[in-house]
C-alpha cells in the first residue's frame, strides 16, 4: 500500500511537471511598422506572445530575447548591451489559458544577418521553451565617410597654411 502511494505521488509530480513544460508557448513576430530593408541606426521591434495553454497557473516566468549573428564566418551570439535596454520580462504568474504580450525594441548597431529568438522558463518547468526564429538583415551604413572627412581634414590645414603664407608676405 505504501509503495503504491509513493508511485502515485511520483506519477502525479511527473505529470504536473510535464504539463507545466508543455503548456507554455512562445510566439514571436516582427512588428508591422518595421522598415522592410533596415540599415544601421534604424529601430526594429518584435512582438512576443507567451501563453499558458494548460489548466494550472505557470509561476515565476522569465522570458528573454537573444540575438545571434549568422553571417558566414562571423557566427556568434551578440551582446545586446548596446542594442536594447529591454532584454527580459518577468511575471509572478500566468493564469490558465492566459497570455503575456511583450514588445522588444532594438536599435540596429552593426550590419549583418541576424536571428532573434525569445526564450522562456518558469519555476516549475523542466525545459526551455523558445519562440520560432525571426531573421532580419541590417544594411551597412557608412559611418565615417571619406567624402566628408577628406575635405575637412585636408582643407582646414590648407586654409591655415594660406593664412600663414599671407602673414609671412605681409611681414
Amino acid at each position, binding site marked *: 500500500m505504501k509503495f503504491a502511494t509513493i508511485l502515485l505521488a511520483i506519477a502525479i509530480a511527473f505529470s504536473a511537471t510535464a504539463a507545466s513544460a508543455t503548456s507554455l508557448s512562445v510566439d514571436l513576430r516582427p512588428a508591422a511598422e518595421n522598415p522592410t530593408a533596415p540599415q544601421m541606426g534604424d529601430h526594429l521591434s518584435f512582438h512576443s506572445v507567451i501563453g499558458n495553454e494548460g489548466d494550472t497557473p505557470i509561476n515565476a516566468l522569465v522570458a528573454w530575447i537573444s540575438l545571434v549573428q549568422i553571417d558566414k564566418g562571423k557566427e556568434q551570439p551578440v551582446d545586446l548591451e548596446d542594442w536594447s535596454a529591454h532584454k527580459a520580462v518577468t511575471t509572478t504568474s500566468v493564469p490558465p489559458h492566459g497570455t503575456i504580450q511583450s514588445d522588444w525594441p532594438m536599435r540596429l548597431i552593426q*550590419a549583418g544577418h541576424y536571428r532573434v529568438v525569445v526564450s522562456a522558463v518558469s519555476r516549475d518547468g523542466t525545459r526551455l521553451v523558445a519562440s520560432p526564429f525571426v531573421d532580419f538583415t541590417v544594411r551597412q551604413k557608412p559611418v*565615417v565617410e571619406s567624402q*566628408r572627412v577628406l575635405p*575637412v*581634414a585636408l582643407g582646414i590645414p590648407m586654409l*591655415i597654411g594660406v593664412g600663414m603664407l599671407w602673414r609671412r608676405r605681409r611681414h
Partner: protein
Amino acid sequence: MTATSLIARKESGELLLSLRGLAWLMAVAVSLSLFGLLLVSNTELSLLDNAQVVYDMVGIVTALGGLLSLVVGIDAVAGERERGSLVPLLLTPVSRDAILAGKLGGVAIAWAVMYVLALPYLWAVGSTGQNLIQGMLVLAVVGSPVVLGFGFFGMILGSRLTSARAGLFTGLITLIASASPLLLGPSLRQSAIGRAFDAVNPFSAAVNAYDAVIIDSQTIASQWPHIAVAAVWIGLLLWLARSAFRRIAR
C-alpha cells in the same frame, strides 16, 4: 574700449594673426586631421564605434585645448617677463585685476577659436552617428571650464616661477597626469586611489561626462556632479590666479 578688452584683444590677436599663433592652430588642425584620416579607411565601424570616435575626438580636443591654454597662460605672464614687457605693463595706470581679466580673456578667446576649429572635424566623423550635437554641447559645458582652468593654472605658474621653461615643464607634467583618464579606461580606475583621483580630477569629470552623454545617451543636465567638479576647478584656479598675479613684484 577698456584696458581689459584691449589686453584681451592683443593677446588673442597674437594667437590669430601672428605666425607663431597660426603655427599653433596648424599643429592642432594637423592632429585632428590625422585622427580623422585614420578613420576613413575603416569600413567595419559600427554605429557604437562611431559614437566612440566622437568621444575620442572630444577627448583629444579637450587635451589639446588644455595644452594650448596652459601655454598661452604661461606665456601671458612668464613670456612677457622674459620679453621684458611685463614690468611696463604692470606700471601702466591699470589695476592688476583689469590686466588679469584681459589676460584671462586672451586664454578664453584662444579656447573659443580652437573649439570652433574642432566643430567641422566632429561633424565630419560623427554626423551619421549618435549624439553629435550633444557631444558638441557637453564639450562646451564641461570641457570649457576644464580647459580654461589649465589656462589659469598656466598664469599661476607664470606668476610664481621666474622661468617660463620651468613653468611649462611643471604645467605639462600636471596636464599629462590629469589627462591620464583618456588613456586609462574606467576599469583601470576602480581602485581606491583611482576612484579618489577621479573624484577630484577635473579631466576625469569631463571624460566621464563625455562617456555618459555621447556613448550612453544620457542628458547633459544629468551630469551635474561632473559639471560641479569642473565649476569648482575653474573657480579655485581663478581665485589662485588672481592671488598669484597680485603678488608679482617684477
